[in-house]
């Protein structure tokens, strides 16, 4: 008997038990999950923040930290646009960075407010 023939005749190991009922149970669970609407679809707030919300929070935290450091070191006594410009100049020398940082912070604020989820709850 050649190797080809032996491999073709290789028997299947016996299945220890019938899996039908387990499969049907799992399919029923799957169908139940499918038929239950997601919390967002019901107008409920979801449990955790999304990636976009995390990214926005990190950007805001960085901007706030930069301003905080500058205030603490006395470089930015007043929270103003000119102060932000001075901070940028302090950190990098005269450049467009302050404008960039300010724009980024404003953009992040806008993004964050637009991304805030609907706080309505289901009846």
């Amino acid at each position, binding site marked *: 008997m050649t190797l080809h023939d032996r*491999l073709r005749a*290789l028997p299947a190991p016996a299945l*220890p038990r019938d*899996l039908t009922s387990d*499969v049907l149970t799992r*399919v029923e669970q799957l169908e139940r999950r499918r038929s239950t609407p997601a919390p967002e679809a019901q107008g409920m707030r979801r449990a955790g923040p999304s990636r976009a919300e995390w990214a926005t929070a990190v950007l805001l935290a960085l901007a706030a930290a930069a301003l905080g450091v500058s205030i603490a070191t006395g470089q930015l006594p007043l929270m103003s646009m000119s102060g932000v410009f001075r901070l940028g100049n302090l950190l990098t020398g005269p450049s467009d960075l302050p404008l960039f940082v300010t724009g980024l912070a404003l953009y992040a604020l806008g993004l964050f407010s637009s991304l805030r989820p609907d706080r309505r709850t289901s009846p």
Partner: protein
Amino acid sequence: MSTSDRDAVRAIRGGDREALVHLVQRHQGRLFGLVLMMVRNPAAAEEVTQDTFVRAYAHLDQYDENRPFYPWLAAIAVRLSQNWLHRHSRTTRREGTALDAAPEPLTDAAALSGLIASERDRHLWQAVATLPSGERTAVILYYREEMPVRDVAEALGVTTGTVKTLLFRARRHLHERLEVEDSVQEIRP
């Protein structure tokens, strides 16, 4: 696809969940053998076999009725088995193909052997079981499942050339291992 499989698939698509019973009972033994040879752990093979049917049910809309049902099911089983191997790997090794990149857990040889009655068949199973995962899966799909090379390639996600290479290497390895085994048996009193 056999008529009964086609009817069952249509019935399931029409909302008759009980028709799934037919598909499970018809294919579970064959599928279990395939998965067992890949994961080499009977408990895991049961789990992956169940997962395969559930996954197939969930994505039945993606199945083309004009093609045979079992190769489509086997392709899902192969992917889930590879995922299982990745999750339960203890070592990582690479053997030349994307399929073989899947690391192997330790083989539960005793548990595997218990499922094969004939001693001669058990030796062959053990020899096949020690092949790298790509060669092993190709051998099982091509020889025992009698799937054409094209379907094997589709199930493994590789080209037909790669399947032929895997089969060639597998035959060479099996020849070597079975020759050693036969010589050992001849020496035994």
